């Protein structure tokens, strides 16, 4: 760091977090070394060498890390052997967020994550004191907004002045632990029911074959696994999303969540690329929904792709209020959707037939040797379910394009309603598999900025000519609208 820039180092306690993270991530090898004595070297020697090396690398890692904010960009350098330097121009910053991983939180530190819309452009400053992290976050947000304002109004005297003080943020939504538990139990219920069905089938087969002596322990194990899976999954959701808050200020949308590892994400509403409202089959019965706002982020997508990962709302009206308050659009519940081709039913049935040949039929043959009656059960269950699924899939798939946005509805068990503003469309593509071509069908793909699954939407099995027409229409609409990052 010998250049003229004034590089800042992370908080010195970063060394403690790096060492603790290394130990927690390598617990099993460390336990093995301690338990087996490290091949005769003795515990003391190994502990001293390993401990010294870990602390040494941690300290060197801290020493070699630095960040600086210049007039133009935020820059970050890190790495001991492989040095890495990144810079994000201030006017390209998409999202600034603060995360508090559990180990860092224990010693009062946090990570500041700066995202831009490229695949590998994110900067993560780890680790800063909480007050420093908040100050850095606020400074970056203010600088990014200032840069954009001055770029938007070149020559305007007002642009050189500091932005006016921001009014207090409006709280749009909080989620209680009770709602989270209800939501998670409801959303995992179909999966658990499927596992329960398998358990019942296994118990049934065992009761018909070896007898009750084998069936009862199998039933006990199955029930135990189900209860354990449900408890762990619910605890995970509560710890990850507990204390969920969604706020909107004049300039940005802010989300806070997490009981152990707390994260705070802030993004400008106009930078939200797609908006999806989802609900599972049981969740819908409880009148709960999940709203996911996907921002244009790169690597951050692996952790925070969906800005609001989970926001169960009380009712459809509540979803509408949250969406309207967050990003100033309606959730598109009442939009008239164009159906996909009815031939999609045939395509889905062919898929089901292939799955039948390769999975169900061999399973049925195996069951024949247990009991002839058991062999017919999977087939009798498979085909009514496959026909219902194919028909329901066709009924659910639909899209609508108007002068502002594309709306896509999909999902049979889990319903998803996604909307993409035309101004955020990056590229449009179509694809047609061999069987789709035989039926004259194509899939339409719409990509926005950002690399997460939420930044891309696909609608399958449109008539090929219509699909091509939509592709051209969407590309023309996108081409006619400037994208705000291209400045």
């Amino acid at each position, binding site marked *: 760091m010998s250049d003229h820039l004034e590089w800042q180092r992370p908080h010195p306690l970063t060394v403690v977090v790096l060492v603790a993270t290394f130990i927690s991530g390598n617990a099993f090898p460390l336990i093995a070394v301690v338990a087996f004595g490290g091949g005769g070297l003795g515990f003391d020697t190994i502990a001293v060498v390993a401990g010294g090396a870990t602390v040494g690398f941690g300290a060197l890692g801290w020493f070699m890390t630095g960040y600086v904010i210049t007039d133009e960009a935020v820059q970050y350098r890190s790495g001991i052997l492989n040095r890495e330097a990144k810079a994000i121009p201030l006017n390209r910053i998409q999202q600034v967020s603060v995360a508090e991983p559990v180990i860092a939180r224990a010693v009062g530190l946090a990570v500041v994550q700066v995202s831009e819309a490229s695949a590998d452009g994110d900067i993560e400053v780890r680790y800063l004191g909480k007050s420093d992290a908040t100050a850095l976050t606020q400074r970056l947000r203010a600088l990014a907004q200032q840069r954009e304002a001055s770029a938007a109004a070149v020559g305007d005297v007002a642009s050189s002045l500091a932005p006016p003080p921001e009014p207090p943020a409006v709280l749009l939504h909080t989620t209680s632990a009770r709602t989270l538990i209800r939501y998670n139990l409801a959303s995992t219920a179909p999966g658990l029911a499927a596992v329960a069905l398998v358990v019942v089938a296994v118990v049934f087969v065992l009761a018909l074959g070896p007898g009750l002596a084998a069936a009862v322990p199998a039933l006990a194990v199955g029930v135990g696994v189900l209860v354990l899976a449900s408890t762990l999954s619910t605890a995970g959701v509560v710890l990850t999303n507990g204390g969920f808050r969604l706020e909107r200020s004049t300039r940005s949308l802010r989300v806070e969540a997490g009981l152990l590892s707390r994260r705070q994400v802030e993004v400008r509403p106009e930078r939200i690329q797609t908006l999806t409202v989802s609900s599972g089959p049981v969740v819908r019965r409880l009148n709960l929904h999940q709203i996911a706002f996907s921002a244009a982020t790169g690597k951050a997508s692996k952790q925070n792709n969906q800005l609001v990962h989970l926001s169960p709302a009380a009712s459809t009206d509540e979803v509408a209020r949250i969406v309207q308050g967050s990003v100033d659009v309606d959730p598109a519940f009442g939009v008239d959707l164009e159906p996909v081709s009815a031939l999609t039913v045939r395509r889905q049935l062919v898929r089901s037939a292939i799955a039948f040949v390769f999975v169900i039929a061999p399973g049925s043959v195996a069951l024949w040797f247990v009991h002839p009656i058991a062999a017919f059960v999977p087939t009798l269950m498979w085909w009514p379910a496959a026909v219902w699924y194919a028909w329901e899939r066709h009924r659910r798939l639909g899209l609508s394009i108007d002068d502002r946005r594309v709306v896509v509805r999909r999902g049979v068990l889990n319903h998803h309603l996604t909307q993409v503003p035309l101004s955020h469309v*990056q590229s449009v593509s*179509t694809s047609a598999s061999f069987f789709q071509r035989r039926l004259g069908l194509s899939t339409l793909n719409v990509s926005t900025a950002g690399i997460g699954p939420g930044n891309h939407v696909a609608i399958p099995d449109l008539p090929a000519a219509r699909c091509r027409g939509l592709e051209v229409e969407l590309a023309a609409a996108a081409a006619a609208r400037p994208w705000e990052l291209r400045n």
Partner: protein
Amino acid sequence: MIQAAVLAIVGLTVGIAADLWVLGAVLIGLALLFLMLRWWVIDLGYRRWRWGLDHRWIERRSGVLVRKTQIVPRSRVQTLTTKTGPIDRWLGLSSIVIHTAGTHTPNLTIPHLERASADRLREELGG
């Protein structure tokens, strides 16, 4: 090419060194068949490949079994990369990769253009 060459060399070796001429001939035959199939697939892919540029966007059409089209509006082009590998250099070709802002789908690539066409395309899009 490399796989077919390896197969042919193994066939020759088996035939000469181990005196198993029938097995050697089968392996050499397989290598030839593999080459012909590969040639056929590459030729089909080349025939299906189209790209175009107008004042609004760049479009690509490709695919033998799965047919694909992709359109990138000019206003969404973020960066252009020109790639020239050793074989491309030898044949006087270049590939152009058009990047948009970190999209989920791969960037639009126009492979193996003649050098002059690649330069023209780069100037046209860059300007």
